[in-house]
């Protein structure tokens, strides 16, 4: 269980997260939704160690994460795919993915094993192995970013806006990857502006407002919630249960905030 308790954090102009309490169940896909500026991405940054909280604690199965920094958090099995531009554009895709195993670099055999496994899972890693990452499309880049994270076989995967800028085909691929990673035992915490897509992938949903949790429920309940439907789903509650439809919903704006 990933637990955030009483988190206050921001970027110098006041706290974005204002006493956030959140529990992410082990083995679940938890999706955080909310309006722009609610602090959704900030939650991921404090967990991954990119941003140190001013107050509060973050624990993974009883181990404190909030003072470890990025390398320490990664060492505990928590990996983040940020919102955009996470790759090293001048390096080949192979190098990018191998660098995902930077913390395993002393064990060359394990590193190669992991690379082969990831390349089997995400074909683009092998197909465009020698291309520069900066020449990939948005969807391809996202695939490689996830591939890079999988090199450490994370116990918790943090995904910031996995649908951002993707066409429907790429969305399907990325959604499937997330589900596959989860089926393999990885806990997923994702932030999504496309509320319909996010909640359809998730088992748990969290609505964040003003840096605090406003609502927390199983994802299918949240999708059926009239208030959520009114604010984030264009007024109509979803007619299907979360996770029941692996296909990606139509990429219409009605499910997108901001």
């Amino acid at each position, binding site marked *: 269980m990933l637990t955030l308790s009483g988190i206050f954090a921001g970027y110098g102009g006041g706290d974005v997260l204002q006493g956030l309490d959140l529990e992410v169940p082990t083995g679940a896909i938890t999706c955080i939704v909310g309006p722009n500026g609610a602090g959704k991405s900030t939650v991921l940054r404090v967990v991954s160690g990119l941003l140190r909280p001013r107050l509060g604690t973050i624990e993974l199965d009883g181990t404190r994460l909030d003072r470890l920094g*990025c*390398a320490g958090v990664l060492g505990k099995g928590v990996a983040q795919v*940020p919102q955009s531009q*996470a790759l090293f*554009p001048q390096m080949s895709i192979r190098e990018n993915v191998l660098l995902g195993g*930077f913390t395993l670099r002393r064990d060359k055999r394990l590193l190669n094993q992991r690379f082969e496994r990831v390349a089997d899972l995400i074909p683009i890693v092998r197909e465009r192995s020698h291309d520069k990452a900066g020449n990939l499309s948005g969807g391809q880049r996202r695939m490689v970013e996830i591939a890079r994270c999988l090199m450490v076989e994370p116990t918790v995967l943090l995904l910031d806006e996995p649908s951002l800028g993707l066409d429907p085909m790429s969305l399907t691929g990325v959604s499937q990857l997330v589900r596959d990673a989860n089926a393999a035992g990885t806990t997923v915490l994702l932030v999504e502006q496309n509320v319909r897509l996010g909640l359809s992938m998730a088992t748990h949903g969290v609505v964040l407002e003003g840096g605090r949790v406003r609502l927390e429920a199983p994802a299918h309940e949240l999708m059926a919630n009239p208030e959520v439907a009114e604010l984030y789903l264009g007024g109509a509650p979803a007619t299907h249960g979360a996770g029941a439809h692996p296909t990606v919903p139509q990429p219409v704006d009605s499910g997108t905030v901001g």
Partner: protein
Amino acid sequence: MTQLVQALVLGLLIGGVYALMASGLTLIFGVMNIINVAHGALLILVAFLTWKTWSVTGIDPILLAVVMTPLMFGVGWLLYKGVLSRISGSSPGMSVLLTFGIAITIEGILNVTAGNKFRSATPSYFSQSFRILGISLPKAQVYGCIAAVLVLGLLYVVLAKTWTGRAIRATAQNPSGAALIGIQASGVAALAFAIGTATTGVGGSVLSVLYPFFPASHYDWISRLLGIIVLGGMGSLAGALVGAIVLGLAETLTATYVSLQWSTLIFYAVIMIVLLFRPQGLFGSRLRQDVMA
């Protein structure tokens, strides 16, 4: 024809030495966005230390690079940890101001301790040449170029083939992306600055033999070196090599066929023309993501 070959060979030898001197500057910019204006002053500092050691002990000045390089690695590490880390994340303009302060401090110390006059180390081979197929190759230039090739080769191997090098390149290209895969950005930055400064250990030792210098010579050197890395593409090691060879060839060909006074002007003219057509420099690449809206 012999004159042309002679000029081309000399240009390549000089270009190799320029590349050695520019390599650290471009590495530091590439990783940290720091325009290290003190790079020229550090070269002159090493040239002075080399000259002094040579004049007292008689040890070959180019061989002294073996001592100067680790010494300058330490100086670079301390400079980064003590001074430059404080402007980490600031604009390159801030780094120009700060390193310019370091440069004039070094110049002032050299003026006070060593005096404001020209020096040059003149080992026994200083005025000797190898003669191959009618071409004269000054021994000092050849030794300097060999040192440059060794250092540049080592730098390439470290950057391309080792995990340390990958970490340096990753941090240069995407600091937050590097942090997310467990690379400690501050450690990598200090290491890159130290390696970049360590190149002045070899560069300054070679400089002490090939070029007369005095404390304020660093202004001339930093102008040339910045010109080289702008021409090659800021942050690109291959670009620094090509930019340096262009400068070396421009200097020797102009000096041979026109006049020595025009040689530097021609180089800057080449820079202007190249930048008109390739603003990113010769080796500054533009990827798909660079042109996406």
